[in-house]
């Protein structure tokens, strides 16, 4: 198919945010070209059949944060979006277990077995977190102002936020201030006493970050994960039927429906500029495309240190991009199984296998896993977040067989001596051994195994240092500081070049928010 050379807008990167921007621009009538380096779309939200008959959400594996208005605007349900709620979280222990499920009564009954105090505190905690989540959500939908030169609209934004926080009252404001600054362990200690509960809940404060549950700052990451909603249901995680790649595919189909052109195996090597304006892109194979506007869905380091000529950027901006923290800390192990894992503490099949399974018996377990990583090796006893999508979605695997996705921390990008094949295998073995401690049959039912180290994640998905959030969710990298102060509103120092990836406000997760807000900014500034 002959392809045009001239477009209104070119979007670099076919991850879910790039696709979202492309779809919104196309929906507004712009002629859009999206370029994806790989042969498949989705970026980190991708489904691939790695072993014959076994489909995996290779990288990102659950959906919680996708904004409902995006689902509506882009008519995603019509294009194949179908989320199945993740019903439970199961934490196997030595000789016992903890299970929390969608049925609040059952959960509290189960908690009561471990700690009456925690059973009592559980609902109040959930309410508080959701109230604070709702209070923070408007910020996620606010264009970050430039605080160094507050114009009228910037000042108004800040005043609105001030009024908004005043309305919280002292109790909730106190909790919010604590969530912004504390460790998830300290924060949860103020509410609960049963260690496996606290440890499992704290895990959402470490996912994707280079912190332990006792590291201050991790409570914010926990809150970030609480802000998700599926179909208006608060704090509900879900699977996408067909894997997370199907989310991306739904957005891609929507974009195409609105008229966008999508090209795969189109590796952008350079953003072309003239007089400080972006005018197009050049591909690795020498092809060039022109556009009025170029948007990058890549992380800030890839965009500004690889694709843009340094002479087009101010020196202090380049330094700020270099200073942007993006340490990778996680790995992924995808297993093709001949059956279901059998947990010693809760043998046999059951509803506990259809939700998330968390290897997080206590704080020390996770904290020690972090200690290993910060001293330069992968965790000897890692934290693992497991899902078995094939239990709810039989199309993911051949009949009677299963796919198991293990998200693992910690696997540091900067491992001493660097990653190599033998370390990758050793890491895979460590994960399997950690599983076998609670489900001893696992070793006998593994048919295939795919291990992704942070280096693999970087090479395959183009995530710098393998960081799943395109940059850490640390206080100094949020809101008007993400990714660089003065440039937190999706614009860049190169005119007509915008960014729309997770490295921008409000950050990572399958939210679509950066993509949506970038598109809105671009359209607002369109001439």
């Amino acid at each position: 198919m002959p392809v045009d050379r001239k477009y209104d807008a070119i979007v670099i990167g076919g991850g879910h945010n790039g696709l979202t921007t492309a779809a919104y621009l196309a929906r507004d009538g712009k002629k859009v070209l999206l370029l994806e380096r790989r042969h498949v779309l989705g970026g980190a939200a991708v489904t691939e059949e790695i072993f014959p008959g076994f489909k995996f959400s290779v990288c990102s594996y659950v959906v919680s944060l996708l904004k409902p208005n995006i689902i509506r605007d882009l008519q995603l349900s019509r294009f194949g979006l179908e989320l199945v709620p993740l019903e439970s979280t199961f934490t196997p222990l030595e000789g016992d277990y903890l299970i929390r499920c969608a049925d609040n009564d059952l959960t509290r009954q189960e908690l009561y077995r471990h700690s009456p105090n925690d059973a009592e505190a559980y609902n109040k905690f959930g309410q508080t977190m959701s109230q604070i989540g709702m209070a923070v959500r408007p910020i996620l939908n606010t264009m970050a102002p430039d605080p160094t030169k507050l114009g009228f609209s910037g000042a108004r934004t800040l005043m609105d936020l001030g009024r908004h926080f005043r309305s919280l009252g002292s109790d909730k404001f106190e909790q919010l201030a604590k969530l912004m600054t504390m460790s998830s362990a300290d924060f949860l200690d103020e509410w609960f006493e049963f260690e496996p509960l606290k440890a499992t809940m704290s895990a959402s404060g470490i996912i994707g970050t280079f912190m332990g549950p006792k590291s201050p700052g991790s409570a914010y990451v926990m809150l970030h994960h609480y802000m998700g909603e599926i179909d208006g249901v608060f704090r509900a995680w879900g699977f996408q039927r067909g894997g997370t790649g199907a989310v991306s595919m739904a957005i891609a189909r929507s974009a195409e429906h609105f008229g966008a052109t999508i090209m795969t195996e189109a590796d952008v090597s350079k953003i072309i500029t003239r007089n400080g304006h972006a005018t197009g892109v050049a591909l690795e194979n020498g092809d060039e495309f022109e556009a009025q506007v170029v948007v990058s869905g890549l992380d800030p380091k890839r965009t500004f240190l690889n694709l843009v000529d340094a002479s087009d950027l101010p020196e202090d901006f380049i330094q700020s991009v270099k200073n942007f923290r993006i340490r990778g800390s996680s790995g992924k192990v995808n297993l093709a199984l001949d059956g279901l894992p059998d947990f010693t503490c809760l043998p046999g099949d059951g509803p506990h296998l259809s939700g998330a399974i968390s290897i997080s018996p206590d704080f020390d377990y996770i904290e020690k896993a972090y200690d290993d990583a910060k001293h330069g090796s992968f965790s000897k006893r890692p934290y693992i977040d497991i899902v078995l999508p094939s239990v709810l979605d039989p199309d993911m695997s051949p009949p009677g067989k299963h796919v198991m996705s293990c998200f693992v921390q910690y696997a540091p990008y900067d491992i001493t001596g660097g990653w190599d094949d033998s370390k990758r295998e050793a890491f895979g073995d460590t994960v399997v051994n950690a599983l076998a401690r609670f489900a001893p049959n696992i070793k006998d039912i593994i048919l295939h195994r795919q291990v992704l180290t942070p280096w693999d994640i970087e090479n395959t998905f183009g995530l710098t240092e393998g960081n799943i959030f395109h940059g850490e969710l640390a206080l100094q990298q949020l809101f008007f500081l993400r990714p660089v102060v003065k440039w937190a509103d999706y614009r860049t120092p190169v005119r007509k070049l915008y960014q729309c990836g997770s490295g921008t406000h409000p950050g990572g997760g399958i939210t679509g928010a950066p993509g949506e807000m970038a598109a809105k900014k671009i359209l607002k500034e369109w001439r």
Partner: protein
Amino acid sequence: MKSFDTIVIGGGVNGLITAAFLGKAGNKVVLLEKGKSVGGLASTEQFAPGFHCNSVFDSVPWINSVLSTDLDLESHGFRFDDADTALSTPGTEGKTLSISPDTEATSRSIAQFSDRDAEKWPGFCEKISMLTDFLEPLYGITPPPIPELDLTSLLSMKPMIKPVRKHGRQNLVELLRILPMTMLELLDEWFESEPLRGTVAASGIRHLNQGPMAVGTVFNFLHHHVGSESICPVRFVSGGTGQLTDALQSAAETAGVEVRTKAEVSSVMLQNRQATGITLADGEQLTAGAVVSALDPQSTFHLVGTQNLTPRFRRRVKNIKFRGATARVHFGLKSLPQFDSLNEKALKSIVSISPSLSYVESSSDAAKYGQVSQEPWIEFSLPSLRESSFAPLGKHVLSATVQYVPYHLRGMDNATARQKLRNSVVAVLETHALGIADLIEHEQMLTPNDLESKFGLTEGNINHGEMMLDQFFFMRPTIDTAQYSTPIKNLYLCGPGTHPGGGLHGMNGLNAAQLVLKGN
């Protein structure tokens, strides 16, 4: 029953300052100190026959200048001794890093390890001094009640205009960016040589339960640089740190304050949720219009009685994080030990054992699991080299601040922790001064548990509550007591548990005194 305008509980720096300022304003004030002399954490004491030490603080980097001018501390015998101060760190191959107020000399010292870092040093000094320029006026402000801000409390933020004018709004944003960073992140932006990174990082973890890879350590680092001209500042009080509180006592008494020692308060008297006075341990009761406590918040509200607090407030007080992790060690030595790479000039000032950032971080690991660090971060000095009166002729005192020794021990009692502390300190010192173990004649080990019983510090925390971002400004010590007042009418707080936190700077006492005067 004796009656006063104000009763101040606790004779440390802040208690004395509050009392002195209230006395100067014409109030009839009594200050009650449990110990046999005032001083608190600023005490200088004899720990073995003929051997003296500064109990907790060897160096006092910053005292608010208002104190010396308004209270004329010099005339009461207080003087800084700033000769030859530096923070030294033994590096590899016999090289010593020396950080002093002389920027050029420091750069030369850094150049032994890295030319690049030496070049960057003056810029770093400027940057930190710019950032602390913002904090200094903030420290003189009573935190506004948040979130119920009104115009008056916003106006109280007026002193912040000056630094914003001086450095620009861009730099205020830079402060916001840097404040929540970890020391690792800050240092990654600046330096590569490990002894320098380790030593600067160590001044971010002082008195914390966290290592330099924790969020909030940059805030703690900046806190220790407010009001100081240089990086890793060292300042000595002539005659020992205790001279500061002796001078404050004399200033307070000159202002008409009655200072009572060996006067332990057993409870605060209440009437209709108002403080009306105190009861002493011997049964004597004193009444007053206002009671100001320099004790930490938990100890203070213990005197009030938890049954007199609302459940919400009780929860807030209970949730204050203390977790002391700093120990103090004092050795009386037979003679001056021979250090491999440290000369007498370095020993006369302060020495930090911080060869690398990861060394300091590793030393924090054990504390997370209730264990005593085997290779701790140690900062020591030999005060007897400056003050010959500290030790008998020819003998010496070595005082060390040691991290990490947790308050909450696991699988051991305090006596075992003390033994482990001694072993690891001696082992680390031996690697720099072979044979030092044989010189020890006397010793005093103060674990956080010991600091708690000796100084009445909850969980042995020297700052009366962790200096972390979640306990800063309007959150210190709790969201409803950040204005030095408490839910108990006429009961005020003036200790380091309040804004702006720990140290011997005296800002807490000064701010609280102003508030009490307004309240009266």
